[in-house]
């Protein structure tokens, strides 16, 4: 194993973080050097019995010095906060056209599923120079996906989605590991982040054993679980239509308005009573025991596809 698998700054964001780290190191180093130097000088010059003058400094000067370094420290810290916060805010501005990769963590492995339907375990293939967004959830305890070369980590929580976005600029094989203590084999819940060129990624995807993409798998589930019975347009049961739902604002029965994102869709499947939609009876059964997190991912991908590519798959439901 090479150290470069951990230390390479493999994205622009990672380089930014390194710059901030360097800046803080320089400032800290200067402060430590200053304090140490002063202490050493004082220890020598004012050693007990030495001949250095010992008079009192005027109280006014003391006060000015005190206020001086209080203010200086305050503004230095304010500057550092501003720098760090602006880095954070830049990282938050989500780019468009992302490649969405789903990650399900469990004791003690990473299950990864690409939008094309390709699955892998403890390996994450991503194309370089593309915006990748990991949609992550856990099947048991809290884990944490740590990508050292991206300078990123994010806790992976049970029954909730968390996200990690990055844009790798360097190709290569990097480390990927768990950073939140999760039990016996926490330390070996590791894998590889493989960054390849977009062409290689396309080739790699198509070389994998044939499989439906996520949305298609979801569509099959949607029918086998009986969802289509109620949610199909024209069904006798009064249930919300799912076309164009993803990303739209939803009026809830208790007066709140929420945006229908992945977390919302997941909640609707697993905790239907949490976010009841205004104007519909509470008929939705609870699927929390009967679908796995991986299947939820597929269902959500399918419901999303009803919005993003609302031509192709709609027929499937209508039928």
């Amino acid at each position, binding site marked *: 194993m090479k150290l470069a698998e951990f230390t390479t700054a493999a994205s622009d964001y990672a380089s930014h973080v390194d710059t901030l780290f360097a800046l803080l190191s320089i400032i800290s180093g200067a402060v430590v050097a200053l304090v140490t130097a002063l202490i050493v000088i004082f220890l020598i010059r004012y050693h007990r019995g030495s001949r250095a003058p010992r008079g009192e400094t005027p109280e006014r000067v003391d006060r000015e010095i005190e206020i001086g370094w209080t203010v200086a420290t305050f503004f230095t810290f304010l500057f550092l906060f501003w720098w760090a916060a602006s880095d954070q805010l830049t990282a938050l501005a989500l780019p468009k056209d992302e490649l969405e990769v789903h990650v399900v963590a469990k004791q003690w492995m990473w299950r990864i599923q690409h939008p094309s339907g390709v699955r892998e375990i403890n390996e994450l293939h991503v194309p370089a120079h593309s915006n990748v967004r990991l949609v992550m959830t856990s099947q048991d305890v809290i884990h944490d996906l740590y990508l050292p070369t991206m300078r990123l980590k994010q806790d992976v929580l049970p029954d909730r989605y968390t996200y990690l976005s990055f844009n790798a600029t360097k190709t290569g094989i990097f480390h990927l590991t768990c950073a939140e203590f999760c039990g016996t084999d926490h330390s070996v819940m590791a894998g590889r982040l493989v960054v390849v060129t977009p062409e290689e990624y396309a080739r790699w995807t198509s070389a994998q054993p044939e499989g439906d993409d996520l949305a298609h798998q979801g569509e099959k589930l949607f029918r086998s679980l009986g969802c289509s019975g109620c949610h199909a347009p024209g069904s006798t049961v009064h249930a919300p239509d799912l076309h164009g739902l993803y990303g739209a604002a939803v009026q809830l029965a208790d*007066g709140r308005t*929420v945006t229908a*994102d992945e*977390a*919302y869709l997941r909640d609707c499947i697993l905790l239907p009573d949490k976010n009841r939609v205004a104007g519909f009876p509470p008929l939705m059964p609870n699927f929390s025991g009967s679908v796995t997190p991986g299947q939820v991912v597929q269902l959500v991908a399918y419901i999303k596809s009803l919005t993003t590519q609302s031509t192709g798959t709609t027929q499937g439901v209508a039928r």
Partner: protein
Amino acid sequence: MSNGGSDMRSLWRGPLLAWIVLMGLFAISLGSAYIPLGHGNVAVNLLIAAVMLAVLATFLMDLKNAKSLVRIVAMAGLFWIMMMFSLTFSDYLTRW
């Protein structure tokens, strides 16, 4: 020590008054809970609870005659609660 009737009356008068006010507030609280006000219900109930606490603390716990230090300590607990609630909610209300 002699304790005549007037003594007893002064012993009871203040606290009894506070108790009557508390009982009244309790009744309002209970009654209002059955009027559908949506989110208003919990607001009204908590407001009444806060007033009841104030009455209890001021007149029954005798904070009105306490040293200012004691009053500061009593307030400190509330200040720290506020800190806990506001910062925890700063996460929850901005999360999704």
